């Protein structure tokens, strides 16, 4: 049969964001995939080199709407790492609680979108209906349903009175927990859903390691990686995180990983609210920090890395964002080949792509010296292992 090209995107009702997947098909079977990104490139790193380190959390919050807490946290961690700033305990706990609430919200949103992709609109409506109490909680705690603006360099901007809101938070979580368990059962038991999701988009453990995937995509393929456990930040060491790993590597495995994460997040929030200490929420910066810093955060989609280079002024020299979807998307190629066109949306959806996080440039351009400096993965890894002499790493 002759080869045809079926375009998915760039502006497609299945995807909320524009991205271009060219599926080269024979009949209904996919034989090759070409991806083209860059439709949401907005020049965020360029804008970051013009704003102060107190304005940048507002900017990076709008890299992505769904992971809108983890990007400012990551940036603030990078600056605090560069300047050796110690964040107070209460601020770390508040960051943890908001991060886990956001994880619940993001996974419920994803579950609804995945159900919509296989045509199961009823489940889509139910999941988003149960997401509304979480949005109400956010409005109660932070003032807005989506962009919370809680972080600043050195801590959090606003305090939360947990004596007043603890009952409300726990009540909302205990109400949605049995409902989510019921909906999760209906995904795992329904024969048509199983026919659409089991065995679809299989990523073997070998391929997962080769493509360096992160997040639920990796945990669904048997890799035991989670930044909260491997390199704890905020209050995760005190509170403790349980990781669940599945080895099948298909779309159903990743769904189950995410459902488990939602239930685990509810436990973490309960523990964190019980253990939160009193104290200040923010340290004052006496002078702008100097040096290079890397922040790592477990976003709902995987490991998010921010690198910042500061030169002693409030305007950073360079900000680099490496979002989790950037490494998860190339792993779509082995997953898509051999499947039907009808499976393509759910395979792409199971990886939970966040295109707005992904569209960054790869190379660093030093405007003063007018040449390109590319920080390779080894150098980034070396830096992540706390190499205290940052200038040695730069060429």
């Amino acid at each position, binding site marked *: 049969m002759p080869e*045809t*090209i*079926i*375009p998915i995107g760039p502006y*497609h*009702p*299945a995807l909320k964001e524009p991205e271009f997947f060219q599926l080269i098909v024979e009949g*209904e079977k996919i034989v090759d995939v070409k991806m083209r990104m860059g439709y949401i490139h907005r020049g965020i790193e360029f804008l970051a080199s013009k704003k102060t380190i107190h304005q940048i959390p507002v900017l990076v919050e709008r890299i992505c709407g769904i992971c809108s807490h983890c990007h400012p946290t990551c940036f603030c961690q990078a600056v605090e790492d560069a300047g050796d700033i110690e964040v107070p305990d209460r601020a770390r706990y508040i960051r943890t609680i908001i991060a886990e609430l956001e994880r619940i919200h993001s996974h419920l949103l994803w579950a609804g979108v995945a*159900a*919509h*992709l*296989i*045509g*199961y*609109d*009823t*489940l889509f*409506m*139910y999941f988003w*209906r149960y997401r509304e109490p979480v949005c109400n909680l956010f409005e109660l705690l932070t003032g807005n349903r989506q962009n919370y603006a809680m972080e600043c360099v050195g801590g959090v901007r606003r305090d939360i009175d947990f004596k007043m809101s603890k009952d409300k938070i726990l009540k909302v979580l205990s109400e949605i927990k049995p409902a989510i368990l019921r909906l999760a059962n209906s995904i795992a038991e*329904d024969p*048509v*859903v199983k*026919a*659409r999701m089991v065995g679809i988009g299989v990523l073997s453990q070998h391929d997962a390691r080769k493509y360096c995937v992160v997040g639920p995509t990796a945990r669904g393929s048997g890799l035991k990686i989670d930044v909260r456990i491997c390199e704890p930040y905020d209050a995760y060491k005190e509170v403790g995180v349980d990781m669940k790993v599945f080895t099948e590597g298909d779309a159903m495995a990743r769904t189950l990983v995410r459902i488990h994460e939602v239930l685990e997040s509810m436990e973490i929030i309960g523990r964190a609210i019980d253990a939160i200490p009193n104290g200040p929420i923010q340290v004052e910066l006496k002078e702008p920090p100097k040096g290079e810093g890397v922040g790592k955060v477990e976003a709902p989609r995987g490991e998010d890395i921010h690198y910042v280079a500061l030169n002693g002024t409030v305007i950073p020299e360079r900000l680099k964002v490496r979002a989790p979807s950037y490494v998860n998307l190339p792993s779509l190629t082995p997953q898509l080949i051999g499947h*039907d*066109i*009808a*499976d*393509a*949306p759910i395979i792409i959806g199971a990886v939970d792509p966040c295109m707005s996080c992904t569209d960054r440039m790869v190379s660093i351009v030093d405007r003063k010296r007018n040449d390109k400096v590319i920080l390779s993965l080894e150098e980034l890894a070396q830096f992540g292992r706390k190499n205290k002499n940052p200038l040695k790493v730069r060429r």
Partner: protein
Amino acid sequence: MNLVEVILSVFLFPGFIFTSNIGLFFAWVNRKILARLQWRVGPPIYQPWVDILKLLSKQTIIPSTAHKAAFILAPMIGFTATFVVPLMLPIVYSAPVFSFLGDLIVLVYLLALPGIALMVGGSASGNPYGSVGSSREMMLLLSYELPFIIAIFTVVAKVGGLSITGVVEHQIESGTCLFFTASGFLAFIAAFASSLAKLSLNPFEIPDAKTEIVAGPYTEYSGGLLAIFKLTHAMLLCILTWTLVTLFFGGLVVDFTSQVTVVASSVLCVVKLVGLLFVVSIVHGINPRARIDQTLKFFWLYLTAIACGGLIMVFLGW
């Protein structure tokens, strides 16, 4: 029948005006049940009428890559079928407006026309989504016609005749509907699943799968032509439930022996029709969409086996 009576029945009752209004009302019931299943309120009762009016008032764009004649004629093919079929199905009396030997076979052919219209329209659009949608509709048509035809054969064998009037009168005389016999029940299952596929409802909502192929064969249609497609779909909802009730539940026939039975049988007719619609909508609401190859396997293996089982039951006397 003289010419005036023919024209009145073609356009008024049970022809176009009656079927289209009942069809749009059924489309509203379908959407309302779906909304209630999804924990929502759903549209008000006048919504389908307003949708069709609005579509008729929009500009109709014919893309330059399309084959003009086929693009414009495709919706008409399905529309004509829905014009003619109500005249062959009995309502109120057990004899329909046009009745002749072998009209059951003609009914099966006419019910396949809307699917063919969609295929022609999709491939005439000149759009890759249209072609994929058209090929899916083609595969679906080939798959669901087989169990449907075997189910019709079962009914024919059970009743012993090829006319729709004969089917209805057999059910009235024997006192039980075909649904309550073993062979009729199996044939009903096959015909019901095929009807779901004809109406493009979950789990067989494959040709216009919004999240996979944009809008499938409907992608390039706009304005008046899209209105004709939507109206055909609504009328098909009415006609297919009417056909299933006629073949398996004793038909929409009113018993004129006394005043009590007139009222009782009229109410029963409405209950049968709307009840079947409820079942169709609920099945649509609680199922995701199946893949085309899974659907083919389902129809060709399982449903054909069930329909053949029904046929065998007839020869065993059940």
